[in-house]
């Protein structure tokens, strides 16, 4: 299947660099706005939980971070696949620069989960399906980063990384359904299910605000990373030389 020429034109590194530069400030402001709204509702409007008291407020970062860990992985694998099939450089680039951000969110989901688990379950860690599959996700991210760093040729690095990312997608439904398929300490889904969410609206609002805020954070930071990396990868093209020497980068 061939892509229309317009896709190639708009995804060209030069066009990407110009467009993303205009988008970053908007994402940053929208991120800060939703972040402060989410924190305000999360700490001052949402009541303490009737079972868990104040400790449940960890949820407002734990759950969005865990969602992000899977969301970014899917973007990474999709971008990798697009780069593999249609050889779009910008897609390869997006896959590479997404990985450290995804790894950071996975790490945060694991650590905040641990910090929540200690007072509620009485243990920092159990080797159950949800926690173990999320840990495997962290290893997939780190494996992807290490693999790409070990291959010098950028095309081969992109290809190898994409294959690893695509194979690892199998872990994503395992993470999501782990709480249904196996008996576990981890509670089941309360928001992402077909039925009505079983979480009270006063807690759902800050949770969703934080989730949107984390997505905007990702959008801003992935573009910032991509803009630096694009200059390095395209250093032999004329437009990069012009931008760098004329000090408009």
């Amino acid at each position, binding site marked *: 299947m061939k892509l229309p020429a317009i896709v190639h034109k708009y995804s060209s590194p030069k066009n990407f660099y110009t467009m993303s530069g205009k988008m970053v400030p908007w994402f940053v402001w929208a991120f800060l706005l939703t972040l402060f709204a989410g924190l305000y509702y999360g700490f001052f409007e949402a009541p303490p939980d009737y079972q868990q008291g104040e400790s449940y*407020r*960890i949820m407002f970062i734990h759950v969005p971070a865990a969602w992000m860990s899977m969301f970014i992985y899917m973007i990474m694998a999709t971008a990798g696949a697009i780069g593999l099939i249609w050889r779009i450089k910008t897609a390869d680039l997006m896959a590479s620069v997404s990985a450290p951000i995804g790894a*950071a969110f996975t790490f*945060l989901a694991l650590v*905040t989960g641990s910090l*929540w688990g200690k*007072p509620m379950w009485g243990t920092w860690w159990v080797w159950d399906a949800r926690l173990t599959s999320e840990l495997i996700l962290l290893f997939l991210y780190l494996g992807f980063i290490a693999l790409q760093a070990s291959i010098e040729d950028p095309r081969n690095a992109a290809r190898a990384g994409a294959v690893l990312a695509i194979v690892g997608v199998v872990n994503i439904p395992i993470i999501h359904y782990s709480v249904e398929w196996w008996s576990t300490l981890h509670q089941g889904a309360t928001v992402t299910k077909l039925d009505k969410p079983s979480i009270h609206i006063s807690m759902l609002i800050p949770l969703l605000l934080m989730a949107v805020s984390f997505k905007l954070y990702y959008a801003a930071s992935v573009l*910032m990373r991509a803009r*630096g990396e694009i200059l390095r990868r395209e250093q032999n093209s004329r437009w990069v030389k012009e931008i760098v020497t004329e000090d408009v980068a």
Partner: protein
Amino acid sequence: MSISEFFYMGGYALYVWSSYGLSLVVLAWIFISPIYTKKSIIKELRMKYRQQERQQEREQQET
């Protein structure tokens, strides 16, 4: 709710505030580090282009 009550977090202060603090540190670092990376890439490229230009000038003088 008083300020001390807020920071006490119903006895879960250690867990709640270390979760938020660590997230702040990690996310701030992920956000700020590419700014410095980009600056150093630009600096490197400037040097590289300058060297290339000097080399070209030298070659022109020799011919």
